């Protein structure tokens, strides 16, 4: 009898699941049409306010208080997002739309405080909303940026990424620095690629931000330092002295020094040549990464000295050093006659990798795939 009871119990559980599934499907469909209806209503209301602004009138205070009330619900906020999206796309520079967004400020600030207390998925969505609508022009409000900084402290990856994105769209270097420190201290992992790419979207003065980064670089963990150095490398070639100091400082983290070496592979800096040659010539197997990255960076430093160093590196016992050296020699388009001793030499590994680089380059240059 107990077995029968269990069987019926499991049967009942299944039927409940099926009922849940059907109910969810119905909700899902009706949810989409509700969202469309809400968007339509909000669009009409916003259009009406834009009409008022066209006539030189301010946004109706009843509209603002209605928004304050409605947008507390995340479903209405998504509808408002859908309302603004085409408007911003079609008439982003329209003075009426700009004025509307500016007059929306108190409402947005109020909502920022509301969403601070919500579950992190909703907070993350609000940060996304802020970063989306060109807020640097409309929201230079200190208190709003303070709220965003508090979002950065939430232990949710998307909340932090969206908040950092929103702060970058404001273009205030001081706040971005504070956000970077917050993420550096936090428990949630932010991949260095995310940090670098988000910083590249910064809308303010990059030189001012980079200057602040240099001042505080030592206070960050090596993981964040790496992301910051990558950002500087992609953004500007104006910091060779600072990078040089990092490259030459044996007390720095290995990845930080390698990033500095890569900087000189992107931007030519004559004083870096000697250290790069020294790194490439280093025979210590434990330092092979320095030798490899230096051999790659030397592609930007043509000259007899470089060619000799790279040819020496081709004889390295390390595969990666040989590859990097061969690629740099090929990138410099060193004359075939100058490589005769390699391609006809006894070192099979050096010969093979150099021949391969030449051939590969030739195929890419000559061939056209169908």
């Amino acid at each position, binding site marked *: 009898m107990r077995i029968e009871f269990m069987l019926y119990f499991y049967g009942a559980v299944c039927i409940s699941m099926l009922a849940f599934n059907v109910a969810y499907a119905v909700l899902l469909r009706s949810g989409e049409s509700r969202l469309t209806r809400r968007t339509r209503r909000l669009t009409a209301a916003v259009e009406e306010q834009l009409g008022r602004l066209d006539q030189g009138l301010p946004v109706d205070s009843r509209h603002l208080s209605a928004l304050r009330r409605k947008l507390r619900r995340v479903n209405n906020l998504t509808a408002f997002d859908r309302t603004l999206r085409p408007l911003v796309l079609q008439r982003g520079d329209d003075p009426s739309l700009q004025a509307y967004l500016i007059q929306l400020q108190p409402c947005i600030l109020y909502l920022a405080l509301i969403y601070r207390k919500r579950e992190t998925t909703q907070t993350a969505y609000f940060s996304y909303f802020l970063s989306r609508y060109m807020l640097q022009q409309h929201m230079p409000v200190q208190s709003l940026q303070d709220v965003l900084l508090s979002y950065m402290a939430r232990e949710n990856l*998307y909340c932090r990424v969206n908040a950092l994105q929103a702060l970058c769209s404001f273009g205030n270097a001081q706040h971005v620095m504070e956000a970077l420190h917050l993420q550096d201290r936090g428990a949630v992992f932010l991949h260095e690629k995310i940090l670098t*790419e988000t910083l590249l979207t910064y809308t303010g003065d990059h030189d001012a931000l980079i200057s602040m980064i240099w001042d505080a670089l030592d206070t960050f963990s090596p993981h964040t330092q790496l992301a910051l150095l990558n950002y500087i490398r992609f953004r500007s070639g104006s910091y060779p002295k600072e990078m040089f100091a990092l490259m030459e400082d044996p007390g720095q983290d290995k990845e930080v020094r390698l990033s500095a070496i890569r900087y000189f592979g992107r931007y030519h800096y004559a004083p870096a040549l000697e250290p790069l040659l020294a790194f490439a010539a280093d025979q210590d197997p434990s330092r092979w990464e320095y030798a490899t990255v230096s051999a790659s960076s030397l592609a930007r430093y043509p000259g007899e000295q470089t060619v000799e160093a790279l040819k020496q590196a081709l004889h390295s016992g390390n595969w990666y050093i040989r590859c990097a050296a061969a690629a740099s020699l090929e990138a410099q388009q060193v004359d075939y006659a100058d490589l005769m001793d390699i391609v006809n030499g006894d070192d099979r590994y050096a010969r093979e990798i150099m021949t391969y680089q030449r051939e*590969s380059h030739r195929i890419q240059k000559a061939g056209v795939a*169908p």
Partner: protein
Amino acid sequence: MNMDAVQLFFDIVGAFFVLYMLGYASFLFLAVAVGSSTLYQLKRRNHLKNELLQEYYVPVSIVVPAYNEEITIVSTVRSLLSLEYKLYEIIVVDDGSTDRTAAALVEAFGMEQIARPIHRMVSCQPEKAVFEAPNLKVPLTLICKKNGGKADALNMGINASRYPYFVCMDADSVLQYDSLEKIVRPVLEDGTVVAVGGAVRPCNGAEIQGGRVVSYHMPSRILPCMQVLEYDRSFLAARILFDRFNGSIIISGAFGLFKKSLVIDAGGYDTTTMGEDMELVVKLHVFCREHNIPYRIRYATDAICWTQAPDSLSDLCKQRRRWHIGLFDSLTRHRRILANPKYGLVGFISYLYFLIYELLSPYIEIFGVFTVIAAFALDLINVPFMILFFLIYVLYSAILSLTAFFARIHTIDLKLSVTDILKAVGLCALEVSFLRFILAWVRGTALLGYRKKKQQWGTIQRQKINFQ
């Protein structure tokens, strides 16, 4: 014969099966409930833009091992070239095909032979020729090598790859346009992720254009149709559940991403097993735990790979035989994981589940069928109860299949016709009451003579993929 002893035997068998079924039913329920709720949560998260919206590119090498794939290889590579991802390369490894696999690629992409040295980091058979293609969106390399099996071909691909992460995939599969972006997301979200499994779905019935599904129907043939339901119930739901506690011990060979340096340190793919995909994942668990490396093995439900489900029963049997041998190899090689506290929940839940409900289940089920027949012959069975038990089992499994199926359909916004829904409802009962027992028999006999087949490629009838 002593009837008391016989009665006692049947009582013990009965009690065992009640516990066995209870365990399975509970697991299935938990897997489908967690799987469905995860899919719905993911949909809500995406709706609220809780996702990485910028384009962040982690460099990835796609390794495509191929053996006699003349019919599909060109369209597979074309589909890979149309992916919406910027930083990747494609490496096709022709494992000594006896057909025109290599020639088809060389002709289609104007590839040229080149003397490319390959860095041997994991062991594999030597290469016979290397080809590169000019001026494509991303680098395309073809390596022709001596036959050594799928694992050996994958090892060659790892050796030839340039990037820190590699994706393995089957030559008869198509990646959805955003699948690379989705499969690297877990790596960006968590620095300890060393491997990510993608969601493999049968493409029978789907029309795919430029890596996008433009129309989706249940397959017209019954067998692939039943496999669609089986994939959702058994694979999708269970993998989501295991993902919750870092307990995934299988990433399908059809689509998975791995951190190359760790795979190399762990010794690469094992060339002596047929289930190289599962063996590698179990090995990564063991390697990381033994070396105290913090790690996560994730499952990306939205990174989709469309694959051909076998159309004929004989092909399906071949496929399942291979899977079962692979499972046997992986579990026996790493048996020290079982209930070993050092391996945490992987040893207590994942391994135990795969041992009891995957590896031993065909034997248990076949034994169960014979016991029922014997009990019936001896008039020791309550026939109405047995029928009721079976009907509840069919209803239960069918409803869970449908729950998993509809959860997937709803959350990826696929539209089904009424005919498709009726087909799904009708066939899910058929799948659990017939196909399951046929496959139990196939898996139960898979290990007969398995040593001879270990390094062979599966020979399933290929069809040209409808990729435009």
